[in-house]
């Protein structure tokens, strides 16, 4: 069953065709990777889905509803959460507060609730804290309770990335969009991330779309891979199919290789350096 469906989605910035008539289907419970060289339109695709950019044309359907042109907060409410390419935490909020903010769209207390604090609001606040602790507990010993009140700005880089994922999870999404989650991580951390993405689906039943440069992650998690170049989808299929695709290799390396044995490694090597 398709959860997210993009039909003929385009986004032009003036003459630049950032996303050019892309069709993409993401099924319930799938992990799909979107790859492509820098400037291929991957992040713009995410922005179109999450409402940060309105598509120039085309239609985005999520869970049976047309979400084209909705505001980002409405998209989140509908059940799509995302992380950002450059980590964008609320730096001056504590670890747990960051995750608590994620609960915003699933709770309702307003001005009256804030000031009078009726029983309903109290139990809602308790629920928010409890859920936030659960989300952090999902990361095992990465966020032990004694760090919950530390400032997000004090975290290590990899922890910031993880916290961003925890915050996105707190919006209780059906679909999670991760924008280069492995960027800036060392090999061991990348390995942990790969396992985490698999757990997101297996344990929480989330559907995940990953934009990623690091081919180890792509290979490790993807059910399906879609490759973009100059805003167009140039290939789609499982990892082997896409990484062996002539057009994909050309997009990354710029010219055709006669020797086919080294291709996969060449693609992986090239993109790893790009990811830095």
């Amino acid at each position: 069953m398709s959860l997210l469906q993009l039909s003929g989605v385009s986004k032009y910035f003036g003459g630049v065709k950032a996303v050019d008539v892309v069709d993409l289907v993401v099924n319930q419970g799938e992990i799909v990777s979107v790859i492509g060289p820098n400037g291929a339109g991957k992040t713009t695709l995410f922005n179109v889905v999450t409402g940060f950019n309105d598509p120039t044309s085309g239609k985005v359907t999520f869970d049976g509803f047309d979400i084209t042109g909705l505001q980002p907060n409405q998209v989140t409410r509908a059940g799509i959460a995302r992380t950002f390419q450059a980590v964008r935490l609320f730096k001056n909020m504590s670890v747990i507060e960051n995750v608590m903010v994620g609960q915003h769209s699933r709770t309702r207390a307003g001005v009256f609730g804030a000031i009078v604090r009726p029983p309903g609001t109290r139990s809602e606040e308790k629920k928010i804290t409890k859920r936030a602790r659960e989300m952090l507990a999902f990361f095992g010993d990465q966020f032990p309770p004694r760090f919950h009140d530390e400032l997000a700005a004090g975290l290590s880089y990899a922890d910031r990335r993880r916290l961003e994922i925890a915050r996105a999870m707190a919006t209780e999404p059906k679909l999670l969009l991760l924008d280069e989650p492995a960027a800036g991580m060392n090999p061991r951390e990348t390995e942990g991330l790969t396992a985490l993405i698999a757990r997101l689906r297996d344990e929480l039943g989330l559907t995940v779309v990953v934009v990623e440069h690091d081919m180890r992650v792509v290979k490790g998690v993807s059910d399906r891979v879609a490759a973009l170049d100059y805003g167009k989808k140039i290939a789609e299929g499982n990892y082997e199919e896409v990484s062996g695709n002539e057009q994909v290799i050309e997009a990354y390396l710029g010219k055709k290789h006669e020797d086919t044995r080294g291709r996969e490694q060449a693609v992986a090597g090239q993109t790893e350096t790009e990811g830095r």
Partner: protein
Amino acid sequence: MAVATATRRARIEEFDTTPESMMRRAIKAGLIGGGAAVYLCLVGIVPRFDEREVISGLLNLGRTILILTVLATGYLAARPAKVLPGQPEPPAPKAGVGLTAGLVSGAIAGFLTAVLLLLGDAIPMRNVFVAVTDRLLDILAFGQNVWLGALLQILFAAGLALVASGVHLLRPALRSAFLTGLVTVLMASLFSTIIDQILTGTGEYVRLQFLDDTGWLYDGDALTVFGTILLFVVAGALAYSRATRGSLIKRRMEAVPEAQRTTVKLIAFALIAAFLLVLPHIAGRFISDVLGTIGIYILLGLGLNIVVGFAGLLDLGYVAFFAIGAYATAMLTSPSAFTEGPLTFWAALPVVVVITTFCGILIGAPVLRLRGDYLAIVTLGFGEIVRVLVISEWLRPWTGGAQGILSIPDPNIGISLPLIGGPELDTPQELYYVILAFCVLAVFVSYRLQDSRLGRAWVALREDEQVAEAMGISIIKTKLMAFALGAAVGSFGGMFFAAKIGSVFPNSMVLLVSILVLALIVLGGMGSIPGVIVGAIVLVGLPEILREFVEYRLLVYGAVLVAIMILRPEGLFPSARRRRELHEEEIEEAQFEARHGETTGAPVVTAGGSEDVR
């Protein structure tokens, strides 16, 4: 990281303690201190306060200001290096070096004032600098002839600065005792009128003779010699005990078992409440009046704090809500306004709140998409629009144009307030209680809002608007909520202003109000609720109480703001969040150091995971 390293190196150099760099700093301090002293003479502060005594028969305020300038010079010149987080403690300078630095800086400062004295004697400076009178020259020359005076000036300054630099040689506890004693004496003298009044008032209230008659402490405005010594010794001793054995309150508090701490806190709270309730009785009419004004600004500050401190929307036109609140009150309650049957204050109150809240949304709506500087400029415009509207011919039938609206009734008419004990609410003392009640309410509301789902949404919005939106926060709703609530809380300020003065005029609704309210928030600490109260007391209360300095009000005002922003950029009473924000750099620096194994002094905050830390 290169930038961080460069900054760190610059800071280390600044706190270098080699004799050469100490001398360089001494010369710099002397020039700055001397310059400041000359400036204070030229603007006329020194001769102006020649008559105002600090210690009866011994010392006048003009001389005191000069002495303090020189003392500060010597103290700063010999200041030892600060220990930076994550840095090893630099070797302490030798005693001789520090003292010499103080001596040199004092001599330089004294030299500059001596030059002023000689110049003032030699050429007629009065045409340009009206303050350079014979009186000033006489003060500078210690009543001697100019050459001897100039020499005395240098010796005197050098000696004082030497003493001040010697303070660094004292043990920290003694140093703190000395400085606290000095500051206490100074404060007791500056605030003599209000302290005298409160002591006398308390004396009458509890019938204690020695409080009622303060002759032992004050002689007119000045402290008696006995009072000076007593205050210095008592304050010094308290500071000494605090420095050596820790705060008495803290120790007592720690001795109390965990379970009973809440009770102790409640008792402390009740004592503060009781003090606030009896305050107008012991403080008299004038201070109650000042307290009322402070209360009005606390209300305005808390309102703007929601917009600026919580939600991070820089609103420079906050005076608009003050004006709307005040004018709406006036139009609804004054018999001279257009209304047929004027309402009472209390009947008008909910109407005014609704009107102002609505205006908050009205003004907030068009600026939703604006950020930072653009928002500031547009709101600045809105503030002016409201002022221009109330003064305009067009609205004259309702607002009274430049004449304003007169005879606004006090809050008492029609309703007697049983809680406050008596139907008559016509003196400042009684208005104080009403304002106090609303301040308490506003503080409560602010705390509740801060610690709520909405409060978190505001902080998120302040931090990163786009990400906040991606978290499901509706920017439009959340921002409008901030504007509306800010306007509602601020409207109380306007209402009480109208009721307190009894009239409203367009020229009370000037940009300066917006700036003052913003300044008190920044001074207290952005987003901090106690900070707003402290800020209002400092920026609104002090100028009212220190009326004798009224000519130099803006000068002192500017100096105080600059000094506080340099010394405590997070404000006087910062919220925990804000304090952390401003020390973020230090945290990161400490982390950097720890990773590179240079030093291991500072604890490293990390939630694990990163290889090189583990």
